[in-house]
Every structure is written in C-alpha cells, then in structure tokens.
C-alpha cells in the first residue's frame, strides 16, 4: 500500500497523455458493454420463465407461407398441449413507412392470446372490452405514450400485403416485454378479405410442462410431415432467435468486433506503457540503486498499467450505467423494441468488460515491466532523459 502514491503519481505524470489513453479505453469499453448487453438481451427471457412453455408452429418453408386453421384442433388434441392460439402478422402501415411509425401489428384470437401470454397485464381499459369488440385494439403501453393515445381513440392501419384498411379503436393497454405492439381480432381481416379465411401464420402453443414443451415440437411436425403444409415447431426463444439469425451469425460478428476492440485497447495501453517505461529508464535505474528489487519494479509498472486500464474501465462502467437507460429507452421505441425488451445491466457483461480491460492492462504492462526490470542499472543511469 505504501507504494500506491508513487504508482498513482507516476500514472498521471503526463496528464494529457494519461487522460487521452483513459479516454481511448473508455470508448471501446463502452462499445463492448453495449454489444455484450445486446447479445445477452437476445438470449434473455423477458417472460419471467413462462416463455419456456410456449411453442410456435409455422410453415416449414417460411413464415410467408400460411398453414391451415384446421391444424388447430389436431394440435390441441396432442397430449401435453394446454392451450393454442393464433397470431397472424398483418404488416401494413400507420401514417407512413418511416421507422418511427413501425411497430408490430398482429391479428389474433383475443381470449386465448391472453391465456397463453398470461404474464401480460392490462393496465388501462378492460380485457373484456377488447375481446368483445371485433375492431378493438390491445395496445402496448409504450406505443400509447409514443402517440399520446387514450382509451377510445381510433386509428387506421393501411394494409399493404393484405389489401385492407383496418379502423381500430383502442380498448385496452398492456404491459409486457414488447410494449410497442398492436393486437386485434384476426376476424377483422378475414371479414374484409375472405381470401385469407382459414389461413394461419403461426399457432402458439402453451405446453403443460417443460417436459411436454421439449417433446411437442417433434410430435407436431411429425403429424403434418406428409401434408401439403408441413410445419416447423420450435420454442419461443428459438423462434425469436430465428429473426436474429436472418441477419447472419450475429453472435460471431459481435464477438469478433469485441475481440477487435479488446486488441485496440491492448495496443493503445501497450504503447502508453512502453512510452512511460522508456521515458523512465533512468528513474527506474535510480530506484533499483536505492534497493528496489526487480520483482518490486515489475510490480510497480504492472500496477501502473493496471491502474490505467482500471480507471478506463470504471469510467466506462459509470458512463455505461448513465447511458444505459437512455439507450434502452431509445431502442424500446424503435423497431428493435422486441429485442431491446430483454436489455438490462447484465452483471456478466459488466464483469466481462472490466475483466477484459484489466487483462489487457496486465498484458500491456508486462513487456515494458520486464524490460525495465531486466536492464542493467549502469545502463539505465547512463541514459539521459
């Protein structure tokens, strides 16, 4: 402990350089935290564990292909199935196609939807008002705030793929994982577009147990394997991650970027520590003349390197904590809301970020530290400046 003041003062002997180095650690650290949090959010369970009992059945070829509504009865009869509901993506547009006006719009079966997504709570209006009104809309709390809607307000969704305009009335407001969605009775679409009647985008199953949830995908898919509309059944998490994988191997990309960032911090810190050690060749020789042994010199330089990276990490951590709510809020109000819902200050991400930065500080300090400790004292004393 008695050497701490020396280490601390040494670190800040060139204030501008140290501050710039710390800043150049803070920024990559911040990016690592953001990327890591997004990555963890993709895997996060926002349903409070209830999502693990939910399965999604869709056409084996793609989500663009419909499956017959008649499958519903056959699925419901399978052992282990507690409930089944239908969710049909509608698309369309609200006002225009600008990103700020993008949100999820689904035709559904109101009553069974609420049974299957039972972690969702109605915070305004009444569920019964929505389920009994064919043109009623269940709207996410966040979307309500975005547009300043109130219960009873009307809005129009202009159809594009499904060429029908839906005039909907806000009947209830929900709070749940993705609070930017609008859900309405699918019959509203079927009545205006008889062509789509009996066609389903996805069935959502609620399994009776974890064991059933594991067993059912194979059972459902086997049942329709040789039909004209074979199915693909997967867990809710797999289904959601399928969207992410459409972007490519996101995990590999994020890991790659994070590794590159860690290397950048390493190079910056190593450069600073090498410069600091080079400038202090004489000073280190003097310390050794005074009796500072090689292990102590090594420790002091490594401590300085670690302190540099730790300062960067903790400043970055503080900034990330401050910026996190703003970042999350921004994403929750964007088309990324579904993925942002699982965002939180994951301790694993923060610890990994700090760990990487400290490790980098240690590695960056090792070479200059060993060099300084190995140089002969007379050589060090001969070097001026």
């Amino acid at each position, binding site marked *: 402990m008695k050497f701490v*003041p020396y280490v601390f003062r040494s670190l800040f002997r060139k204030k501008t350089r140290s501050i710039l180095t710390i800043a150049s650690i803070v920024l990559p650290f911040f990016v690592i935290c953001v990327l890591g949090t997004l990555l963890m959010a993709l895997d996060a369970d926002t349903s409070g564990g209830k999502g693990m009992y939910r399965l999604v059945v869709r056409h084996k070829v793609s989500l663009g292909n419909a499956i017959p509504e008649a499958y519903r009865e056959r699925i419901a009869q399978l052992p282990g199935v507690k409930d089944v509901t239908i969710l049909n993506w509608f698309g369309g547009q609200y006002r225009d196609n600008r990103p700020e006006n993008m949100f999820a719009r689904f035709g559904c079966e109101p009553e069974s939807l609420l049974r299957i997504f039972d972690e969702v709570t109605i915070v305004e209006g009444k569920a019964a008002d929505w389920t009994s009104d064919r043109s009623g809309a269940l709207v996410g709390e966040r979307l309500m705030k975005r547009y300043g809607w109130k219960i009873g307000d009307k809005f129009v969704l202009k159809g594009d793929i499904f060429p029908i305009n839906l005039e909907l009335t806000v009947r209830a407001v929900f709070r749940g994982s993705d609070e930017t969605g609008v859900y309405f009775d699918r019959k509203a679409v079927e009545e205006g577009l008889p062509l789509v009647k009996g066609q389903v985008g996805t069935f959502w199953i609620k399994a009776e147990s974890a064991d059933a949830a594991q067993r059912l995908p194979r059972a459902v898919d086997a049942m329709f394997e040789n039909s004209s509309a074979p199915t693909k059944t997967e867990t809710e998490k797999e289904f959601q991650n399928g969207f992410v994988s459409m972007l490519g191997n996101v995990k590999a990309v994020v890991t790659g970027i994070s590794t590159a960032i860690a290397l950048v911090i390493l190079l910056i810190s190593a450069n600073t520590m090498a410069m600091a050690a080079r400038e202090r060749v004489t000073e280190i020789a003097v310390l050794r003349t*005074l*009796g500072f042994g090689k292990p102590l010199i090594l420790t002091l330089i490594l401590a300085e390197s670690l302190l540099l990276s730790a300062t960067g990490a903790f400043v970055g951590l503080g900034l990330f904590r401050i910026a996190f709510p703003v970042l999350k809020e921004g994403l929750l109000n964007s088309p990324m809301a579904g993925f942002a819902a699982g965002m939180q200050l994951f301790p694993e991400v923060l610890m990994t970020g700090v760990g990487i930065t400290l490790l980098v500080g240690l590695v960056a300090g090792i070479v200059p530290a060993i060099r300084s400790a190995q140089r002969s004292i*007379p050589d060090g004393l001969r070097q001026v400046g």
Partner: protein
Amino acid sequence: MAEPLIRIENVVKQYTRDTQVLTVLDGLSLEVDKGEFVALMGPSGSGKTTLLNLIAGIDRPTSGRILVGADEVSSMSEGALAKWRSENVGFIFQLYNLVPVLTAFENVELPLLLTRLSKAERKKQAETALAVVALSDRLDHYPRQLSGGQEQRVAIARAIATDPALLVADEPTGDLDSKSGEEILVLLERLHSEFGKTIVMVTHDPKAAARAHRLVHLDKGVLKEDVRAKGEKGEIGVAAAAAIAAGK
C-alpha cells in the same frame, strides 16, 4: 590502524561491445578505511564511475572480489544485493535523479519504503534527513520548484535517510554552479566529520577533490596514484589535487 570498510581485490571489469572486449578496470586492488573521505579522479574512461558502481553494488566485476564490511558484494545474488544496497549504501548522482512527481519529502522517504519502519517513523527519519541538509522548509516542494543545489541536497538527504555507513557520490558538484557546489562539498564534509560516513566520491574537479582526505587517481583502469592528506583532519588541497589530476 583504522579497519578497512571496503576491500577491492584484483578486480577486473570488462565490457563486450559487439565482438570487442573492453577492459575498464584491470586488476585493481584498493582498500578504503571506515570513515575515510576518498576522491576518485582520473581522465574520462579511466574507470572511476565503474569502480564506484562496483563498490556500491550496482555492477559486478568480471573477476576479483569486492568486500564491504563483512559482505562480499561481488558474489551476492541480485535480490540480496538490492537489499544490501538499501541498507548499506547511499548514492548521490551528478544529475540528482530525483523522482519528478514526488515532493522533496516523498523522494527522501523512497528508500525508507523498503524498510519495516512505520509511517510515523518514516516521516520522522525523512524529516531528520531533510533537516540535516537544511531543507526542512521545502518538504512539500517538487524537484521542479527547487534550485539545482537544493535538488542535490534533497538527493543527499535521500542518500542518508536510511543512515548507511557508506556514501558514494558520482560527480556530485558536476552540474552545479560554484556556490552551490561549495555548499554540497561542505555538506559532504559535515556528513563525514560529524556523522562518520565513509564517502567515496568521483570527481573531475580538483576543488572538490581537494576536500577529500585521500585521493585515488585512476588511469586506463589501473591505480596510478594514491595520496593521503597529512594529519587526521587534513585535506588534499587544491594545488595537489590539480597536479594529480593533471598527471604531474
């Protein structure tokens, strides 16, 4: 007869530069008594600083033995030598070599950090050392806030902080004006006479060498002359030092 503190026995020091072997000290033998104030003189490249480094245990001879007190410093391990230096030798450099980010007090405290002394004890000892060099009013000053002479006095305080028996000084006045240089020499004399320190000082300056009680003249790595002042408190004298330095 005073007992020898330093015994240098047939020491050879060679450096290898590329394929060339350079002999800096060539079979040198010398004894320095406890409490002596010795000036090492000689032309550049004569091996003065190398000899000083060997005595202080910051370099090792190629062959031969160096004993300081009962310790054979030429055969100590690196770790043992570092510990030995911290307890037995105070080093004064030509360019002071203070740590610029530490105050005068903290610079003097540095060697004490290697001891088992408590914080209060370290404070007392560092303050005492700074009082000896008359810098009690500069404890919180950084090296950049001190004059060259004051910096060298801080460096001397650092050298005596652990109360070593041996002080080695490499051109301690070489970077100072004559007034400050004089002050440093007076201080070294005081450390020798009042505190009984054994001092080995490398210098080119006959005025500085004149303050010593013994003058060892090296040339091309061998002992050329070894002159002792007459009388217990005698000094070499400027004229004699200048003549020896000039090789007359």
